[in-house]
C-alpha cells in the first residue's frame, strides 16, 4: 500500500517491512530526523553503541548468528568513515549488512560542509553496492533494493547514504515488491551436467576430501543438513576453513579439523595428497592454499560457489559449479542416489588408514604447565565448561583466534563469529554485543586477546547499558601474540613494538564499566573461575593470564606448501631454541 510520508519515516517503515527487529547505531547531525522517528515507535529496537565501528561489527555478529540482514545506522562524515572497517570486514567474509548513513543536505554536497565526506565514494570498493539518495521518491525503492542486494547471491554489505533534506522531504512510500531486480539475478541452481560430472568424479575418487567454507553457513540450515547427509553417505573425510566451522560437527569421526595456515596436520596433508577435492562454499584463500603452485598438485578439483568470480581466481579447478550451496548439494544428493553411486571401499579404507597415521601425530598437542595457564588449555577448559550449553563464540584476531578455532569444537553452524578475510582486531567484542541482542538467553563468549580487545573496549559500556551479559574471555599474554610469533620465527626475535606495555587492570576496568571482572593466574583456579563467569548474569571481563611466549602451531609458513607444515615440537627443537633467550625458554 502506497502512502505519503517523510524520508525519515520511510527509513523506519522500510526496516519494519523488511522484518528488522534490531538496529545498531550512533546519532549525529545528519541522521537526527531518522532518530526522531526511531524514538517514536517500538517495533524496531535501537542499540546505541559507543563507536560506529562497533555498530558495524555488532550488525555483523547479529547477521552471522541469525542468518538475517544486520543493520547499522550512523551519521555523515566521521560516522560513515568509522563504519568503513566493518563494511570491509563484511565484504571479505560475505556477511549481509545494510549501512544507513546520514549525509549533509543535497545542496551542500561537494561544498566541504561540516561532517561531510564522499560516503558513496569511500564505501564503493568496500560494499557490494551503494546508493546516494537524491530524491525522496527513490528512497523506499532503494532501501528495499539494498536489503535484496545484501542478502541475495553472495551476501555482503551495502550502504544507503541519505542527505538530511531527503529525510525531511515528503514522498511516496511503497512496500517491498517481489517483482525482482532490474539487473542483479545471481544464479542459484547449478548446471545439471556439471553436477552429474562432479558426482561421477566424487564416486570414483580414491583419496577424496571435502573442503568446505563459510558459503555453506551463508546458504542456510538446509545447506548444512545436506552437506552432512552427503558427507556421511560417502564416508569421505571433511575439513573446513575458519569461516566454515560448525557446518559439519567437530565430534564426527569424518571431521579432520580446520585446514590452512594453522589448520591440523591431517587436514592439510589430506588436501595435499587427495585425488579429488570437493570445495563447497570456500574460495581458495591464500591462508588456505599456502604456496599456490604446490597446492594439492595431484588432485582434480570441484568448486561449488555462488560467485562466478571465485572460480579459477587463485586455483584452477576442473569442474566449476556456480550456484547456491543448498541448491547444488540437493541436486548432488539426488544425482548420487539416481546414479546408485558406490564408493571405492578398498581405496577409501587405505585413505582413512593414511589419514589416521597423520592424526596420530597429534598436531595440536602442547606442553602442559602446572604453574602457568597455557592458552590452549584455557580454551579447552572453556569448551569443556560450555559445550553442553547454548553457546555462541566470537573472537578477535590473532593467536587466541586460532587457538579458539583449533580447540573449541563446533557442532552447529552460526555459532562461530570471527573476522576471517579482513582479520579485524577488535571485531569480537562488538560482534558479541550483536549476537547477544539476537540471542538474549544464550551464553555469548568473546574469546579475546589483550591487544585486540582494547581496540573496541568501549563497547562494554553498550553491553552494560542494554543488559547484554556478554563474556569477554581474554587470553592475556601481554603481547600482540601473533605479531610476536612472526617476529620470533621470521625476524630474529626482535620484538619490535609487539609488547603491550601499560595494559589496563582488566578487573578494575570491568568495575569501572559497571560489569564484573575476574582474574585467573593459576591453572588450578581456571575451572572455578570459568564456572563463576558463566553463572554471573551480567557482562564479564575475564582476565586469563596465560603463558606469554606460547606459539600457535601447527603452522604453514608463508610461501610453503601444505606438506611443509611446522609442528610445535619440531620448531621447539631447532628454530625456537636458537631464537629464544633464557628468559623466554623459562616461560615456554
Amino acid at each position, binding site marked *: 500500500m502506497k502512502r505519503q510520508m517523510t524520508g525519515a519515516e520511510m527509513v523506519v517503515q522500510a526496516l519494519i517491512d523488511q522484518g528488522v527487529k534490531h538496529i545498531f547505531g550512533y546519532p549525529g547531525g545528519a541522521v537526527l530526523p531518522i532518530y526522531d522517528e526511531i524514538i517514536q515507535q517500538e517495533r524496531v529496537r535501537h542499540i546505541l553503541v559507543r563507536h560506529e565501528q562497533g555498530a558495524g561489527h555488532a550488525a555483523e555478529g547479529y547477521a552471522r548468528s541469525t542468518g538475517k540482514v544486520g543493520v547499522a545506522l550512523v551519521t555523515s562524515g566521521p560516522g560513515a568513515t568509522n563504519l568503513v572497517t566493518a563494511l570491509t570486514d563484511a565484504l571479505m567474509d560475505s556477511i549481509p549488512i545494510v549501512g544507513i548513513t546520514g549525509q549533509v543536505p543535497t545542496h551542500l554536497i561537494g561544498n566541504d560542509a561540516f561532517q561531510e565526506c564522499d560516503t*558513496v*565514494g569511500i564505501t*564503493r*570498493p568496500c560494499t*557490494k*553496492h551503494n546508493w*546516494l539518495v537524491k530524491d525522496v521518491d527513490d528512497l523506499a525503492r532503494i532501501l528495499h533494493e539494498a536489503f535484496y*542486494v545484501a542478502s541475495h*547471491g*553472495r551476501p555482503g554489505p551495502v550502504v544507503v547514504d541519505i542527505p538530511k533534506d531527503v529525510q525531511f522531504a515528503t514522498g511516496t512510500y511503497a512496500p517491498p515488491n517481489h517483482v525482482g531486480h*532490474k*539487473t*542483479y539475478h*545471481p544464479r542459484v541452481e547449478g548446471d545439471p551436467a556439471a553436477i552429474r560430472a562432479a558426482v561421477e568424479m566424487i564416486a570414483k575418487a580414491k583419496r577424496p576430501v571435502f573442503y568446505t567454507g563459510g558459503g555453506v553457513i551463508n546458504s542456510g540450515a538446509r545447506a548444512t543438513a545436506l552437506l552432512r547427509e552427503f558427507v556421511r553417505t560417502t564416508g569421505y573425510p571433511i575439513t573446513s576453513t575458519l569461516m566454515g566451522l560448525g557446518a559439519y560437527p567437530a565430534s564426527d569421526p569424518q571431521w579432520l579439523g580446520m585446514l590452512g595456515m594453522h589448520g591440523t596436520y591431517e587436514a592439510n596433508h589430506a588436501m595435499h595428497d587427495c585425488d579429488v577435492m570437493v570445495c563447497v562454499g570456500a574460495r581458495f584463500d591464500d591462508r588456505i592454499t599456502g*604456496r*599456490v*603452485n*604446490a*597446492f594439492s*598438485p595431484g588432485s582434480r578439483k570441484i568448486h561449488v560457489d555462488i*560467485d*562466478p*568470480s571465485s*572460480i*579459477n*581466481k587463485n*586455483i*584452477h579447478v576442473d569442474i566449476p559449479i556456480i550456484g547456491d550451496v543448498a541448491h547444488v548439494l540437493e541436486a548432488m544428493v539426488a544425482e548420487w542416489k539416481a546414479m546408485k553411486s558406490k564408493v571405492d571401499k578398498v581405496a577409501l579404507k587405505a585413505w582413512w588408514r593414511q589419514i589416521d597415521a597423520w592424526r596420530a601425530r597429534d598436531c595440536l598437542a602442547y606442553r602442559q604447565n602446572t604453574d602457568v595457564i597455557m592458552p590452549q588449555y584455557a580454551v579447552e577448559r572453556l569448551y569443556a565448561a560450555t559445550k553442553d550449553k547454548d553457546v555462541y563464540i566470537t573472537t578477535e584476531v590473532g593467536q587466541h583466534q586460532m587457538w579458539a578455532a583449533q580447540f573449541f569444537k563446533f557442532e552447529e553452524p552460526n555459532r562461530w563469529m570471527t573476522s576471517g578475510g579482513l582479520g579485524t582486531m577488535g571485531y569480537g567484542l562488538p560482534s558479541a554485543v550483536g549476537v547477544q541482542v539476537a540471542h538474549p538467553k544464550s551464553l555469548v563468549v568473546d574469546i579475546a586477546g589483550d591487544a585486540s580487545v582494547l581496540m573496541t573496549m568501549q563497547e562494554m559500556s553498550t553491553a552494560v547499558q542494554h543488559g547484554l551479559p556478554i563474556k569477554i574471555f581474554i587470553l592475556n599474554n601481554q603481547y600482540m601474540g601473533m605479531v610476536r610469533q612472526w617476529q620470533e620465527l621470521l625476524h630474529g626475535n626482535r620484538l619490535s613494538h609487539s609488547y603491550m606495555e601499560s595494559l589496563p587492570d582488566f578487573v578494575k576496568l570491568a568495575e569501572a564499566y559497571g560489569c564484573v571482572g575476574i582474574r585467573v593466574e593459576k591453572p588450578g583456579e581456571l575451572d572455578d573461575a570459568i564456572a563463576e563467569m558463566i553463572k554471573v548474569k551480567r557482562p564479564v571481563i575475564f582476565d586469563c593470564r596465560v603463558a606469554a611466549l606460547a606459539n600457535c602451531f601447527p603452522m604453514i609458513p608463508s610461501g610453503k*606448501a601444505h606438506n611443509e607444515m611446522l609442528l610445535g615440537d619440531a620448531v621447539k627443537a631447532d628454530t625456537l631454541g636458537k631464537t629464544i633467550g633464557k628468559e623466554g625458554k623459562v616461560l615456554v
Partner: protein
Amino acid sequence: MKTTTKTAKRSGARAPTARTKEAVTRRAPRQPPASAYFIEELHDRPERHTLAVIVDNEPGVLARVIGLFSGRGYNIDSLTVSETEHAKHLSRITIVTSGTPMVLAQIRNQLERMVPVHSVTDLTAGGKPLERELALVKVASSGQDRVEALRLADAFRAVVIDATVDHFVFEVTGRTSKIEQFVSILAPLGLIEVCRTGIAAVSRGAETD
C-alpha cells in the same frame, strides 16, 4: 549474445608487445616448478581483449568500473563510454584490457557481478571485432611543412575541420594503428595537440553484442 567465458583461444590475440614480453620474463620462478599450475601459468601469455559492458547510466557507474580495474590491478589500455540507449538509460563502456586468460575471465566475472551491470561481452573471444577510433589533431606550421601536412591528411582521409593561416585541425578515424601512424608522421610537421576518443568496437556479423 556472445558471452563465452573461457578465452583459451589465442587466435584473436595480438602478438605481445615489448612491454608484455618483459612482464612474462619478470615472472620467472624463484623456485623450481612443483606442479602443473606453475607451468601452466608460465605458458599463459597476456592477451589483449576488447570488452563491451552494458550498464545502467546512473551516477558513479563509471567510477565503479574503473575502481574495479584499479583496485584489483587490471590494465585499461583504452576506455570509451557513452549512453547508447536513452530510453532505457543504458550506457555502453568499451574497455580494451590485457591479461592472461585467467585474469580476463576474472575481469568478466568481477564486472558481471556488479549490480548496475547488465551484460559483459568479450568481443575478442568471438573473433576480431570492428574497432575504430577518432582523433582530432592540431598542426601549426607554415611553408612546405604546412603543404605536406595537408597532403598527408588527404592520404589518410583526414578532414580539415578548423583552419587559420597558422594551423589546421584534422579529424581522422580508423583503427588504432592508423591513428598512431598519422600522428607520428605529423610529429615533425608542426603537430601541437592530439585528442583521441579511445576505441569504439562492435562484433562482426548480424548478431548483437
